[in-house]
């Protein structure tokens, strides 16, 4: 069994309620921070842990916190990004639904470190029942002296509020989230200024993902140095992976970042293999926006090494032969799945979710969807594939926020690795409507280039 830090007590019945959580060591980390550590010391521990943002970008959390501006007399805010909306990702929901106090404890420690006295949890609107769970937990924490004024006699005050979004993927982007929290359209802001300087209501603000903030609790419990011993290299600690698609056991798993992709997919402890005895065709390991990889490149890097569930190993080879860990939304496709159709649903998703503020994304996402739809329906032309490639290239990097990149990458990777399948759709317009391209050569062992003679 892999070591667990977030879900170590998840099996305990009623752990979502305060009394059980507290009785099992809950709020010990917060107590330690408030009573025996300065904010600077907590920040030091978080830096030492090597914790990286779990929302997708993987930016070092301690470093992000150290950027927060501290002008005299201006409030600072911590905002918890619970707008989990990237297709394939559903890990934060599990944390909030089943371990709400773990999140609240994490928010308390983080707010203390940042010097924030108000904290907002911005949760996606569709998770409509979760605010009740969180608000109940917040009320219980308050009743027990973990929130409110002068928490546990430390002199530190904190209020946590839950705010529901209303259906907009873009609000997962931190500046769009702030706009939405201010009661506006979720249009991302043009950076700089960054939220750490000018965020919520123009005050210094840190926005972190749910899992990132919850992870601060075990970091304080075992210490930053100890936490950094989990995982490999710069991928320290554990990561929540939400696995879905054609696997036997979809669900949310906590993994230590030292196992291979193969183990994650095939072991009984995690996904339990491909469903219905089928073969693995492809996988999108970090949420819909990261590049899709065919089975052969997924399990082994281009160098022939086993691919590991770490930030570095998954991105080994860059976009040419690698992908990204992203948010940990692990989508598995079996041999019966159509890459064109899957790519089309993602293109449709990003088209639907584009805020419309900047022209490449507003115009380009819809265009890609329409061209893909033609190909999928057997009405495509060979030149459409090159056109798609060119459209995504003109979106990527040219937009205000990363949604443009997120829309471009899945299309680019699908064409890069599965061009045969796209061409087959164009050349076989009728057949492609009744059968799938199948596994083809996508799981064949890769030829490893011999190392160049020295």
């Amino acid at each position: 069994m892999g070591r667990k830090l977030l879900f170590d007590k998840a099996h305990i019945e009623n752990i979502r309620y305060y009394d059980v959580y507290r009785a099992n060591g809950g709020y010990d980390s917060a107590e330690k921070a408030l009573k025996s550590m300065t904010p600077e010391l907590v920040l030091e521990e978080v830096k030492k842990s090597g914790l990286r943002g779990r929302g997708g970008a993987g930016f070092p959390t301690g470093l992000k916190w150290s950027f927060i501006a501290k002008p005299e007399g201006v409030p600072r805010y911590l905002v918890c990004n619970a707008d989990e909306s990237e297709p394939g990702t559903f890990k934060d929901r599990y944390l909030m639904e089943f371990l709400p106090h773990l999140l609240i404890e994490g928010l308390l420690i983080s707010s203390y470190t940042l010097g924030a006295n108000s904290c907002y949890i911005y949760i996606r609107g569709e998770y409509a029942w979760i605010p009740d769970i969180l608000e109940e937990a917040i009320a219980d924490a308050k009743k027990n002296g973990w929130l409110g004024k002068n928490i546990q006699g430390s002199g530190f005050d904190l209020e946590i509020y839950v705010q529901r979004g209303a259906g907009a993927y873009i609000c997962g982007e931190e500046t769009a989230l702030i706009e939405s929290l201010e009661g506006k359209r979720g249009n991302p802001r043009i950076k700089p200024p960054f939220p750490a300087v000018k965020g919520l209501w123009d005050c210094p603000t840190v926005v972190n993902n749910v899992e990132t903030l919850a992870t601060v609790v075990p970091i304080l419990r075992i210490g930053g140095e100890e936490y950094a011993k989990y995982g490999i290299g710069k991928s320290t600690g554990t990561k929540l992976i939400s696995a879905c698609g054609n696997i036997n056991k979809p669900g949310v798993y906590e993994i230590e970042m030292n196992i291979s992709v193969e183990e994650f997919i095939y072991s009984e402890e995690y996904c339990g293999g491909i469903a219905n005895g089928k073969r693995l065709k492809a996988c999108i390991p970090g949420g819909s926006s990261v590049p899709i990889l065919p089975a052969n490149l997924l399990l082994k890097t281009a160098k022939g090494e086993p691919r590991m569930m770490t930030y570095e190993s998954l991105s080994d080879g860059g976009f040419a032969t690698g992908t990204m860990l992203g948010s940990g939304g692990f989508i598995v496709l079996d041999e019966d799945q159509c890459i064109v159709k899957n790519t089309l649903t993602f293109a449709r998703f990003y088209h639907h979710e584009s805020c419309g503020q900047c022209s490449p994304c507003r115009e380009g996402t819809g265009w890609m969807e329409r061209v893909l739809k033609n190909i999928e329906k057997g009405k495509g032309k060979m030149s459409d594939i090159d056109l798609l490639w060119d459209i995504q290239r003109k979106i990527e990097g040219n937009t205000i926020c990363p949604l443009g990149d997120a829309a471009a990458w899945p299309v680019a990777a699908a064409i890069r690795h599965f061009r045969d399948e796209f061409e087959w759709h164009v050349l076989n317009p009728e057949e492609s409507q009744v059968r799938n391209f199948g596994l083809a050569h996508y799981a064949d062992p890769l030829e490893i280039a011999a190392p160049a003679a020295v």
Partner: protein
Amino acid sequence: MFSEEKLNKVKEIIARYPQGKQKSALLPVLHLAQEEFGGWLSAETMDYVASLLQITPIEVYEVATFYSMFNMKPVGKHVFEVCHTGPCMLRGSDNIIDYIKKKLNIGVGETTQDGLFTLKTVECLGACGYAPMMQLGKHFREHLTPEKVDEIINECRAKAN
């Protein structure tokens, strides 16, 4: 107009933000208003929300039309919002949508004649591991099968009677 109880709720929401930042309450208050006034936001409802928050009506229209959960037109009593993004598609959401269409004899975006059901397709709701799924009111209905869809339809009909 909101009841006394709802007005207190609005006050409580506004109190979450610093003085003068009551516009931040817009999304929560629009949710409240949609629940309270028939499941959608009419121009009158939005103007009322604007007056409650002391902002201009256009600020409310701009926001309400941006977010997909706010209905700008009346909808059926029960709205089936079936996800059809990648992970749900991989687990057969297209079949579920087709089944509901046939069963209720409506297309996507349509409402049954009795005003009881509306069928919508939506993009990823964050329940990919429990696919196929749909949102029904406040909750998710997951691991959908034709049999489960039948049960849900019966349950909704029973509630209406």
